[in-house]
């Protein structure tokens, strides 16, 4: 009984059969090869179907090829059976070439089988060592923070001159009484001379005047306009 297990597909079987013709692959007889193949497949009675499908497809194609080759020329279709035969022959040549190449490749002196690398290489490595970075400021600041955590903390709120909301309200109302047109909020602030030269006091005045302006707007005494974010805030007395 014949088996197909030994073949890597129908092309492999065909190649083996072609080799049995003992001629150069370029000179094999395709008709003879077809007959050999069909005979072989017929002989393989116990075909396992899942294995055999490819072989049977090839058998059918070869049978068709054979009949085409035997038909009179004028009845042939495209592609011509000669072309089909040539194509098969080219495929067999390529498979044969690669099979031989594989054998020659495997027969070389192979590393780990015929030639050997160093059995116990020490290995090449780079030891990485950290180069620690720290500046003197970081060092002192760190000590300051440690101390700040442990030193008892006394909170002192420094007395500071401010413009209160009440005085801002009074001031703004009084000044608005004198003006009818649009005025920017900053123009209501005191001149930066004398005690008002203190930037912190000026900031306090600005904040209080702003809140006072909002309060007056809420009371319906003024209207406020600001054309864009952080733009000048202008105000006008109503009525």
């Amino acid at each position, binding site marked *: 009984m014949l088996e197909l297990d030994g073949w890597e597909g129908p092309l492999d079987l065909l190649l083996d059969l072609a080799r049995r013709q003992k001629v150069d692959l370029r000179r094999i007889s395709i008709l003879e090869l077809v007959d050999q193949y069909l005979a072989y497949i017929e002989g393989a009675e116990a075909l396992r179907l899942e294995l055999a499908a490819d072989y049977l497809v090839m058998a059918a194609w070869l049978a068709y090829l054979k009949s085409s080759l035997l038909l009179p020329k004028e009845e042939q279709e495209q592609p011509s059976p000669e072309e089909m035969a040539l194509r098969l022959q080219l495929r067999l040549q*390529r498979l044969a070439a690669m099979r031989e190449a594989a054998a020659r490749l495997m027969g070389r002196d192979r590393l780990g089988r*015929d030639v050997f690398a160093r059995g116990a290489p020490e290995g090449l490595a780079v030891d990485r060592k950290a180069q620690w970075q720290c500046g003197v400021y970081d060092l002192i600041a760190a000590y300051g923070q440690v101390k700040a955590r442990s030193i008892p903390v006394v909170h002192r709120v420094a007395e500071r001159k401010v413009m209160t909301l009440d005085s801002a309200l009074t001031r703004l109302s009084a000044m608005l009484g004198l003006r009818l047109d649009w005025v920017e909020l900053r123009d209501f602030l005191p001149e930066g001379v004398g005690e008002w030269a203190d930037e912190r006091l000026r900031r306090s005045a600005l904040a209080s005047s702003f809140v006072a302006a909002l309060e007056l707007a809420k009371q319906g005494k003024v209207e406020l306009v600001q054309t864009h974010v952080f733009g000048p805030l202008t105000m006008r007395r109503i009525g």
Partner: protein
Amino acid sequence: MDDVSRAVEAALFAASQPMTPQALATHLAHHGGMEGADVRRALRELSAHYEGRGVQLVERGGRWHFQTAPDLAHLLRPVHEEPRKLSRAATEALAIIAYHEPVSRAEIEAIRGVQTAKGTLDVLLESGWIRMAGRREVPGRPVIYATTPAFLAHFGLNSRRDLPGIEELRATGLLDPVDTAMEALMGASDDPQVDQVIRQSADGLAPEE
């Protein structure tokens, strides 16, 4: 023996992988200005020195390593474990990749005339002899495979040009796809010789004895 040669000899003995002259120069340059040219000269001198010894210095795909002399295989083989044998399918797939690279799985299958099991290419990838080398820009964008430096090292090849018989295979068109070969043959079929080839191949009745 000069310092560069000593350093290169020691580094390649210690290395667990073949190394390029550039990698050697980079590694050895940590302490002192070693140039690629110095390393290359040392490699040439060393490989001449080891000629004929039990150990040889060889270049494989631009990377250098020491290995035992091939003629001592019979002495050393019994001591070392035999590497796993490749299946026939894997062997053929490897040859096809090496001779045609880069190739897609479909192209491998076209040559072998049979489907390639998933595991076959996996075995080759795992061995480190082949790698995925991108995708073919055709419909489906199939992955294409190529060989690696480890492949050259394992099979003792300086480069792919040293693949057994590759020049002859290329010259005879056996590395061209069947379609290309067909076109060439048919396109030139005014040529009576080619007609002859076609006729012969189709002519089942008269093979030469």
